[in-house]
């Protein structure tokens, strides 16, 4: 590639690359769902044998009587027009898929953002300390923390927190997002932000208390990854030429860590953040189940149980779009921060 490649050109090519990625994911999901055992039409009838003309009508309505390739094109074109169809499952039959998803999205976003905050703050602090004090006892402890916390099952940590902090100590609520029926006025759907918009500290406190355990659970597990990555990058930057040069100039060690090593260590972290989002979403599904938070994850589980094809497709489309979009943004962000990536 040419050396003077502009940021805009990089962003454009990266954006173009995102499209086939999305296409491949949607195609994979389409085919997996088509071969899923269990006829959705029969499932609608609760296992009883419906009259054949009704089966035909329902199949026609769902477009299942068309040849597969036509169904595929139909599905793709509708997805790109933003039409996710209507649910065919037993829980949400006839309701628009996007409506259901958008009503569940705020809970998942709240959980994900909160967990990411916990993960990055805990992970960066432990990683920097561990890297700056390498080969000391503290470093060994923090490295072990990073390795161990990363392989602890989220649901087990969640159950542990529930037992200790909610049931034995009674400090925090064990389940759900809200207590009582006095909900904050819905603007964004995220209770913390809504209650802040209302300027109601009692509401905000309730929302926050319900968020602490889920975010801590998911965030701590994800922080292991940050600890390891930040530590590795710290080791690289702390021994880099510019850090040694600073040392030679007589800059104190603490300043080298904060000014030189720390800042440069964070750049590669931003770029691996994109991969973290896929893990974050999978983790969010488990966390939602553990803490009974009705976000998209629980919706997905319900739809898988009831074989609600359109709902599953819709949720996967939303997940895939968010993941591809986020990795696009992060790659571009990485290129802004570190011009070498554009090469």
């Amino acid at each position: 590639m040419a050396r003077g490649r502009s940021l805009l050109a990089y962003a454009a090519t990266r954006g173009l690359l995102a499209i086939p990625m999305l296409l491949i994911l949607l195609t994979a999901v389409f085919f997996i769902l088509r071969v899923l055992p269990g006829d959705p039409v029969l499932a609608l009838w609760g296992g009883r044998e419906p009259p054949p003309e009704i089966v035909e009508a329902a199949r026609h309505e769902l477009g299942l009587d068309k040849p597969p390739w036509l169904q595929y094109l139909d599905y793709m074109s509708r997805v790109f027009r933003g039409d996710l169809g209507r649910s065919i499952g037993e829980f949400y039959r006839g309701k628009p898929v996007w409506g259901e998803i958008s009503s569940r999205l705020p809970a998942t976003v709240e959980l994900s953002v909160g967990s990411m905050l916990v993960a990055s703050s805990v992970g960066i602090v432990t990683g920097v300390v561990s890297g700056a004090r390498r080969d000391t006892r503290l470093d060994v402890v923090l490295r072990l923390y990073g390795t161990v916390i990363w392989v602890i099952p989220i649901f087990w940590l969640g159950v542990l927190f529930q037992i200790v902090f909610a049931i034995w100590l009674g400090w925090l609520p064990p389940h759900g997002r809200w207590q009582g029926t006095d909900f904050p006025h819905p603007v964004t759907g995220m209770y913390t932000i809504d209650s802040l918009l209302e300027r109601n500290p009692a509401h905000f406190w309730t929302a926050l208390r319900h968020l602490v355990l889920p975010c801590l659970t998911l965030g701590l597990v994800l922080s292991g990854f940050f600890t390891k990555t930040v530590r590795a990058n710290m080791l690289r930057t702390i021994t880099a030429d510019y850090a040694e040069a600073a040392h030679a100039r007589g800059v104190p060690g603490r300043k080298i860590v904060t000014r030189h090593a720390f800042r440069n260590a964070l750049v590669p972290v931003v770029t691996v953040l994109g991969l973290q989002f896929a893990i974050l979403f999978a983790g969010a599904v488990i966390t939602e189940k553990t803490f009974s938070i009705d976000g998209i994850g629980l919706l997905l589980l319900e739809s898988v149980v009831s074989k609600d094809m359109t709902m599953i497709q819709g949720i996967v489309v939303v997940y895939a779009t968010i993941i591809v979009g986020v990795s696009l943004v992060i790659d571009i962000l990485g290129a802004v921060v570190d011009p070498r990536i554009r090469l």
Partner: protein
Amino acid sequence: MRLLPRVHLEDWLPRHSIVGRIVHPLFEERRTLAGRMTWIGLGLLVAFIVVAVGANVIAPFDPILPADEKNVPPWTEAVVNRNETFTGWTGNWTLLSAAQSINRVGATSNLAGQVEVLRSFALDVKRDAVLSVGLEVLVLSNGTDAGHYPVLEVSRDAGMTWLARFEVRTTDRLERIDLSAFAPWHAWDLTRESFRVRITHASEAGAAGNLTVDFVGATAQWKSFWHLMGTDAIGRDVFSRALYGTRTSLIIMIIAVSAAFAVGFPLGLYSGYRGGNFDKILVLVMDSLYAFPGLLFAGLIAVLLGKGVVNIALAITVIYVPLYFRVTRSQVLSTREELFVEAARALGAKPRRIVFRYIAANVIMVIPVIFSISAADAILTAAGLSYLGLGLSGDVPDWGLDLSAGAERIDNGIWWSSFFPGLAIVFLTIGLSFLGEGLNDILNPLAKKERL
């Protein structure tokens, strides 16, 4: 004095054979942090394999059949209290079916001398450590004439012999009769088949007259077995299930990881060596799959394949194929440019020979690391699938399944049936990731350079 000649590893395992390149550093660096982690991980893994193989021998109870009382806490012998009424009777008392209820008129007899035998007390004593046995009787004044009273006798051998006679002279009060003093009681005395209670209508005021017994119940108190990790909601031993669960987890892990290796490694070798459009498309597809949440992807495929250990393992495979592919391919790309490959090519070696003899042999060095890391992840994924209800189901002893069944009951303070299966997962995954991380530090020369 040395009885055995000193064994040199070098004599048995050449340093530069494929296995030797892993084993030698393992012994030489055993005192470093990475070496210690590797050995701890290896030890844990071996321990789990031993447990999986020897689960039949080690497990004190059956993993599927209820072995004891429900919800016995860990590390204790719980005292189990049972109070059961009968479900079968023979005799000529009337209205007997209502006798089990304490607030409705129970069994009535209108003639002295009538005999009723009550049987099938569902005491279900699980262990022969009976602390006490008793009867509870309530005679109603409403429906009982003066001078009429019941006489109770118990039998431990299905009515062949009758022990003790108790006359219940009080009315409207639950009379508790302690039978413990009579004879030593055993679990087999209290089964549905052997334990009987006979009530006889006795009278001091002539034969005609009513007697109404509202409630007859048998009570038993016994000590449960001692359980290391307690019992679950059906009375299965959590420890035994955790032991057998090791087997399930290891089988899923081995199938998933080997299948992912069998698909991803050759694809990565071929794609990396050949390059071109084939490589580009494959990379794009693999990257797309890698970007999507693996757990959800595996969940969809698990629903597609149906439940069962092998099916779940294959569903999980899908997540790790891209991982093996990527690692192998990137390793091939760097090895391809090495001097010895160049030399082989210059000497006229065929591409097949170059790939398998020169490149694959070097690339395979990174596989143990990836193997243990993906194995840890596969166990987490399998447990996660079971937890979400997309994986295994039914009676199969599986950590994720047990954890999710137990998680619903922690609000009642029953923490052990979800805590311990999770602990097992944690130990196995920690072992595998220690192994992976340690091996990575030891085997990867780049990381080693960085450590210095």
